[in-house]
């Protein structure tokens, strides 16, 4: 670990990686708490895979069409918001088809991504980067975008904290109180979508779901209110991300997988301890 700290002082790319991990942790602590308490993990998984479609398309347009200003994360944001809007719309219009749309987005988003990456001329290592993460690939453009996303998420959650809580706890009651439930729910889906984008470099699309759900789930064992759960989940996620990065750097392991394994270990231990504690009061 001391090796990691001296390396941090030496290498800007490592400092950027840590910063990216911390920025993603703030988002996933806050929004992951909604995902866990509202029990919409599957939607988060679907949106994550939809993101690949946008990244693939942006990557293709940049490489094959010369759109140099277009960053893959721009495509990710667009695809994530589109997916969130679609699920929100379908839910408002016809409740029964929601899960089919979620599955369709999951697979089609992925297929679009693979399709564009295949069609892109040249070197194709980026597919692996997007799927499994590569936190040291974070560039200044991506970092600025992550800061922007965090600010948007924080601001929206601060402003809409009360109605969002009401919608998550009891949608019907919220509707009767005049809350525009459909809009709020779509807003929540968009927050989830943006959070997933912040995590793509850290752990990759396939493993995003771990950081969205597990820290919030562990935090929920210790606190019994929404906003403290968010704070604790963000803190836990920060520690796990930085520790995972440190371990992977020292032992030359893939960072994303290390972070997810560490998170899974903490989750399993916490659940086990909580289960034992319940049995022997």
């Amino acid at each position: 670990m001391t090796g990691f700290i001296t390396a941090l002082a030496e290498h800007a790319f490592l400092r950027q990686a840590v910063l990216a991990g911390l920025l993603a942790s703030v988002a996933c602590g806050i929004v992951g708490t909604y995902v866990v308490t509202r029990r919409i993990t599957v939607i988060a998984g679907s949106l994550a895979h939809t993101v690949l479609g946008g990244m693939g398309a942006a990557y293709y347009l940049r490489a094959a069409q010369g759109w140099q200003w277009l960053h893959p994360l721009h495509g990710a944001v667009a695809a994530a918001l589109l997916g969130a809007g679609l699920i929100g719309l379908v839910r408002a219009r016809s409740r029964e088809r929601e899960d089919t749309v979620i599955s369709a987005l999951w697979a089609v988003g992925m297929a679009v991504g693979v399709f564009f990456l295949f069609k892109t001329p040249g070197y194709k290592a980026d597919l692996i980067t997007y799927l499994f993460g590569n936190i040291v690939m974070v560039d200044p453009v991506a970092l600025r975008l992550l800061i922007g996303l965090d600010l948007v998420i924080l601001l929206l959650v601060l402003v809409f904290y009360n109605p969002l809580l009401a919608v998550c706890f009891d949608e019907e009651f919220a509707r009767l109180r005049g809350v525009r439930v459909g809009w709020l729910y779509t807003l929540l889906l968009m927050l989830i979508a943006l959070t997933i984008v912040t995590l793509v470099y850290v752990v990759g699309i396939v493993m995003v779901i771990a950081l969205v759900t597990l820290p919030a789930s562990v935090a929920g064992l210790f606190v019994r209110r929404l906003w403290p759960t968010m704070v604790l989940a963000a803190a836990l996620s920060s520690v796990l991300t930085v520790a995972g990065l440190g371990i992977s750097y020292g032992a030359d392991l893939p960072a994303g997988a290390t972070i997810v394994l560490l998170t899974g270990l903490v989750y399993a231990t916490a659940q086990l301890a909580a289960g034992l504690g319940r049995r022997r009061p």
Partner: protein
Amino acid sequence: MTVDPRRPPVVEITDLHFAYRGQPVFTGARAVIPAGAFVSIVGPNGGGKTTLLRLVLGLLRPDRGQVRLFGESPRRGRARVGYMPQHAHVDPQFPVTVTDVVLMGRLRPGRLAGPYRRDDREIVRSALQEAEALDLEGRPFSALSGGQRQRVLIARALACRPELLLLDEPTASLDPSVQDDLFELLHRLNERMTVVLVSHDVSSVSRHVDSILCVSQGIDEHPASEISGALAGLFPGSSGLSLVHHDHHHHPHHHEQGGGPGGRP
């Protein structure tokens, strides 16, 4: 509060037609709930009670006919309703405190974004006090018993400052002594607001309420003192019915679909 015939009725249903997935639930049903009443909507499970509730609250639209709430459309009138859902409807593990839950009753159009104000918090305290749940203030919702959760959800409904308190199965899964306490509370609240509750258990509510709306393929109205043998046909296997024998009024159209004696001699 006694029923005041000079005030406009709280709920007025005329010629209600509604079908759910092609199955008719109401065909020309009528009902009136006067201001100040203490009414129970009873009926077998699947008989349309919840559908009626959702129609009254504007969560469903009638296929034909009219539902008026305080003389307005349900979507407008529901701002004056304090609604308590079945307590199984909310996730007991959700990370909220009692205060968080009751504060949700202070949401209203124009006051949705941003933090709650001090007067909201005062109203929440008085609502908790009224529901005899002030001692639960600040406790995690997940740590409460079923009866305590019920009280908190009533407090949330009261925090809306309602003129009509609408409760869905408030007695479900409560022990008899807790049920009696609950009815005592509802009686006290009825002194200043209309109280309507939905129940599948006619025997436990008929002792407490003024009148009963039977919902089973239509709506029928009875004074509570008049729960008759005719009802037994509507609730096959409902053992509690034998407790009430005031069989001096026969409803000839009782089983007719959509029939309601409201306007009949």
